[in-house]
């Protein structure tokens, strides 16, 4: 909400710079997002930082309030006039001006009642009114169609008040105006842009803000008068109220103004409304807006004669729920279907307005309105919230009622509103006011012991001090044996009747008024809860470290996906290998391709790889994240998965001889297997094995399942070429693994034993075996290890060879073997014996030949 400081000063005499006030409001929870300066200089407050404002600061010597005494015709120009201006100088100043709104005073002689303008002397700095771009200029004397001119009467644009440049500023006469007074004292202002959190409904008006200002600064609050001069016939005979849903409409008040004149509001009213971003219309509508912003109590004005016509006599205002299929054309010109829960203002002939939200077109104020019926009511905030959601409408009234306006404010709004209307438009106010108040809210009194305040805030304050803080916010307080009994003021709905919650409500108010900076900073003295081990977090972070150490980068993807993309993981004609579960489906997705939560990390990982392929020769990445499997429970299972993806070149290119220009090796299946085994090794998981994968997203011949203690943990291998193609990854093969993190946690050894360091010498030798091409390598290794026995410490495959001289259908596997006896020096003879056994076993069990 835009809050002119000049308006707030109507209610409280602020004695500190506005910049410091903004800081204090912000710290007290009324966040001042921006300060807009009009004419006044920005003050420097020590210790306070703020953005520099580049506004025009009005020269107090050269920008003055001046009376426009007379407007004369320009002898040489039709589109210019001569304004004779009293700026407090010896003589009247003659300003040549084209201001359209001065033309009507031409030839009147001395203008009466007097009008006032914003006068700029030669040398004054103003905005260039004719420039499209903001540009400042210094006023210089020059001839305008034969008449020398060195000063001017200013438009709002020239002063930086608004973009208005059609006419000049014309202020209506006020007693306090003196010719030659610095303009800054009359129109200078600072506009605070304040953001309100939902609990601050009571602050959503000038008086609401002023009350906070008064409380924070410890100043007196000065309320406007709520008296109204009512000399007409009693209102009771002229209108009646019938509230049918007191829950939704706890209070409804009406006042009536007869024989008034609808016309433009005076300058001060139009100016204030424009400063807060409202468009002035006419004096009646302007007053309803003005009171909405001044008091926070929205008003609605009806054309009383139209109601008389509709009812064929004195109307009865009925508030009720809609009838089936009922419609209303609202002020914004829309014909609206009124759901079932929308509370209406109606008469006997039908709906007139949506309660607390917007009026109807038929009974609105027009230029011809003579008699005004003014509504000030209270509406249930939840009901209004439902209505504005359903009707997709937002008005200043609904913004306030949807947060909550206390019913006590209705009568204040009525009284002040009808009196202002009478002052601005003339006429006679009917005696009294009709006040239907079937559901007053309960008065809340909270008992707050001082030791509770100090125990919860960690402060050491006196009972009186705490009570005083509440009194500043207009609570009524009574102190009884160190217990404060505080009764909430009647503009507040946010203090709970629950004794403990009410205490918390008051604590916040006390802390705010005293200042949060007064609360000390302490170290928790409370009992420390038992610390638990957290293996889930431990393993997750350990896996991240291991994989980053292996040269992989961590990615984090959206957890959203869609069914079609996940279906792309299954090649044509194959059965899906994705989890057998329902999707968690979003009913209001951010985008149609993000309408479910993922069942696998694979789609996101492949998409990420495709996106990166443009810039990366090699990609080695992993993600640890949840997938979401909806089964029979209300909430889905959220297992944590590890996805690993490798694609592209194994190494970065270098200038090294032999590398240059040569095709770098591509990453392949065994790189991925190496990452997995390194991970298992680092987690000290020994008992792992592989079987051919049956996951349809992988190439059937180049993929595997990882088994830990013979239980599957996930599949890995080359992504099925068709799947890769669909994800725009056809250029280079993609290797991918997806593992259950819970299984890694389950099987990792947190207490593993180390191998002793042997000091005995080892004997190394190589052996090459020729076996059938379809014999699995791990089969050969197992035979070697079994036959080699205790002395065979290590077996490393260092060559796989097919082709001449190895016969067709065969392959040669070359191993380097390490023999070592932990206790004594191994003799050649022992090693030879082991070797013989190995060769024998290989012949027998693998039909292997020794390659010579």
């Amino acid at each position, binding site marked *: 909400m835009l809050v002119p400081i000049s308006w707030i000063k109507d209610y409280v005499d602020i004695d500190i710079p506005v910049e410091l006030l903004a800081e204090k409001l912000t710290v007290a929870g009324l966040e001042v997002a921006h300060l807009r300066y009009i004419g006044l200089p920005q003050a420097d407050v020590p210790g306070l930082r703020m953005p520099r404002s580049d506004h025009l600061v009005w020269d107090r010597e050269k920008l003055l309030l001046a009376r426009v005494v007379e407007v004369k015709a320009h002898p040489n120009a039709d589109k210019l006039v001569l304004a004779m201006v009293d700026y407090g100088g010896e003589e009247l100043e003659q300003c040549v001006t084209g201001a359209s709104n001065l033309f009507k005073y031409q030839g009147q002689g001395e203008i009466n009642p007097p009008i006032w303008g914003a006068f700029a002397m030669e040398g004054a700095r103003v905005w260039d009114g004719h420039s499209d771009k903001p540009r400042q200029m210094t006023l210089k004397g020059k001839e305008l169609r034969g008449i020398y001119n060195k000063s001017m009467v200013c438009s709002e644009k020239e002063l930086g008040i608004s973009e208005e440049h059609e006419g000049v500023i014309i202020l209506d006469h006020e007693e306090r105006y003196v010719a030659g007074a610095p303009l800054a004292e009359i129109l200078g202002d600072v506009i605070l842009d304040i953001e309100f959190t939902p609990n601050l409904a009571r602050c959503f008006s000038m008086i609401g803000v002023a009350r906070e200002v008064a409380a924070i600064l410890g100043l007196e609050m000065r309320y406007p008068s709520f008296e109204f001069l009512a000399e007409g016939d009693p209102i009771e005979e002229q209108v009646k109220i019938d509230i049918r849903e007191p829950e939704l409409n706890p209070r409804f008040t009406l006042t009536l103004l007869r024989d008034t004149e609808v016309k433009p509001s005076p300058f001060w009213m139009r100016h204030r409304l424009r400063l807060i971003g409202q468009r002035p219309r006419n004096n009646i509508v302007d007053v309803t807006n003005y009171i909405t912003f001044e008091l926070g109590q929205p008003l609605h004005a009806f054309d009383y004669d139209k109601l008389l016509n509709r009812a064929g006599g004195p109307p009865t205002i009925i508030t009720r729920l809609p009838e089936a299929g009922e419609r209303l054309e609202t002020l914004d010109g829309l014909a609206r279907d009124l759901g079932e829960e929308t509370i209406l203002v109606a008469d006997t002939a039908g709906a007139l307005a949506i309660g607390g939200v917007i009026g109807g077109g038929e009974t609105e104020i027009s230029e011809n309105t003579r008699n005004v019926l003014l509504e000030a009511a209270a509406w249930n905030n939840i009901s209004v919230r439902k209505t504005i959601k359903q009707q997709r409408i937002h008005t200043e009234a609904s913004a306030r009622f949807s947060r909550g306006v206390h019913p006590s404010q209705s009568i204040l709004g009525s009284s002040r509103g009808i009196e202002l209307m009478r002052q601005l438009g003339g006429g006679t106010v009917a005696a009294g006011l009709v006040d239907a108040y079937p559901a007053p809210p309960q008065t809340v009194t909270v008992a707050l012991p001082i030791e509770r305040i100090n125990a919860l805030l960690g402060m050491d304050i006196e009972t009186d001090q705490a009570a005083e803080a509440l009194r500043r916010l207009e609570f009524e307080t009574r102190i009884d044996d160190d217990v404060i009994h505080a009764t909430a003021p009647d503009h507040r709905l946010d203090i709970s009747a629950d004794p403990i919650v009410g205490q918390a409500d008051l604590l916040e108010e006390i802390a705010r008024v005293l200042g949060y900076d007064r609360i000390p900073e302490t170290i928790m003295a409370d009992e420390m809860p038992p610390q638990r081990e957290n293996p889930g977090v431990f393993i997750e972070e350990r896996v991240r470290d291991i994989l980053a150490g292996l040269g992989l980068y961590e990615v984090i993807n959206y957890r959203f996906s869609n069914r079609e993309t996940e279906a792309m993981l299954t090649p044509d004609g194959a059965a899906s290998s994705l989890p057998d579960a329902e999707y968690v489906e979003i009913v209001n997705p951010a985008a149609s391709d993000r309408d479910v939560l993922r069942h696998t990390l694979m789609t996101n990982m492949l998409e990420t790889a495709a996106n990166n392929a443009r810039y990366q020769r090699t*990609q080695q990445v992993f993600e640890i994240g949840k997938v979401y499997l909806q089964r029979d429970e209300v909430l889905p299972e959220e297992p944590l998965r590890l996805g690993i993806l490798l694609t592209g070149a194994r190494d970065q290119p270098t200038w090294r001889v032999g590398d240059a220009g040569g095709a770098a090796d591509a990453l392949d299946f065994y790189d991925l297997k190496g990452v997995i085994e390194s991970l298992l090794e680092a987690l000290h998981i020994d008992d792992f094995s592989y079987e051919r994968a049956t996951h349809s997203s992988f190439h059937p011949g180049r993929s595997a399942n990882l088994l830990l203690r013979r239980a599957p943990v996930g599949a890995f291998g080359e992504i099925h070429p068709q799947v890769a193609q669909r994800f725009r990854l056809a250029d280079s093969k993609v290797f991918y693994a997806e593992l259950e993190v819970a299984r890694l946690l389950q099987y990792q050894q947190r207490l593993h034993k180390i191998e002793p360091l042997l000091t005995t010498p080892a004997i190394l030798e190589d052996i090459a075996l020729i076996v059938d091409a379809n014999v699995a390598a791990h089969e050969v290794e197992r035979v070697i290890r079994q036959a080699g026995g205790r002395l065979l410490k290590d077996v490393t495959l260092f060559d796989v060879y097919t082709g001449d001289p190895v016969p067709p259908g065969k392959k040669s596997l070359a191993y380097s073997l390490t023999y070592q006896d932990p206790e004594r020096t191994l003799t050649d003879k022992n090693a030879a014996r082991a070797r013989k056994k190995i060769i024998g076993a290989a012949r027998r069990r693998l039909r292997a030949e020794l390659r010579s």
Partner: protein
Amino acid sequence: MSQTVEVLRNQALDALQKTTTSDELVQWRSRYLGRKGAVGALFGTIGKLPAEERAAFGQGVNALQSELRKAFEEREQLIREQVLAQDLEEGEIDITLPAYPRQMGGLHPATRTHREFQSIWAEMGFQVYQSHDVEEDDFNFTLLNLPPHHPARDMQDTFYTTNPRVLLRTHTSPGQIRAMRELGGGGSKPIRVILPGMCYRQEQVTARSEIQFTQVEGLAIGRNIRMSDLKGTISEFAKRMFKADAKVRYRASYFPFTEPSMEVDVECFLCGGEGCRVCKYTGWLEIAGSGMVHPTVLRNGGYDPSLWSGFAFGMGPERITMLKHGIQDIRYFWGNDLRFLKQF
């Protein structure tokens, strides 16, 4: 016969003088001093000499052997020095040629910031408690003092699922209720946890807002937890996270699940509080929302709010990461462009 020794001596020393490399040296040694070398051969001839000459001849050959060994060592030393000198003189490489790149990996910036958070909080006794991403409406809102149609529900645009009771958590706060119910022993035990995790909001994805973001929530429950403890604890965090003398400002604010509530600003660590573009010339950066746990929330967690109290706070690690590294676009986080990820 000493003539023979003398001939061999001259010949060997001559040859030694001609060696220039360590290979030649090795050859020379095997020719003259090796097992089958020339000096050895002279020893072999001793037996064929008359007995009275043997002693003198033997001494002569022994002396020759010692002399040649010594000469060899000297020569070897000399050559070693020459080779070294030459290598130092001529063995220069172009040190400006590019390095061979090593294969590096790295953690996502979000993970890095989370770890920083977690270790700081762990030092203060706050342990990680993990909760669901997909939540019940009750836990995300109602039990946190946000009943249906509460105005504050508008502050958060929620992703709802086909089950009207179920949504994607809009904040990590529902974990507060779950932690209290799981760890609180029916409202009889103190709690100190942080709740890190992914949260979701139905917003327009822009450089400044994402539909998915992480939060770290903290919760302390005890019989004697005060608002001053909250301030002390958060200030301590700020000192460890930003800098030892970080100034902190507390502003009154509103969250339905805490009362009193406050926003926490830390002195802008980019400009030192002088005012810059990032802190919008205010000198402050907002780092957390916090407050005393609302009595209704304590009740919903199983605690009697007249006997127990607590505080809670929530922080946005992405925002802090962005501030620290000058990241202008929040979409970088889940965009996973390796050009971005490789900069951490």
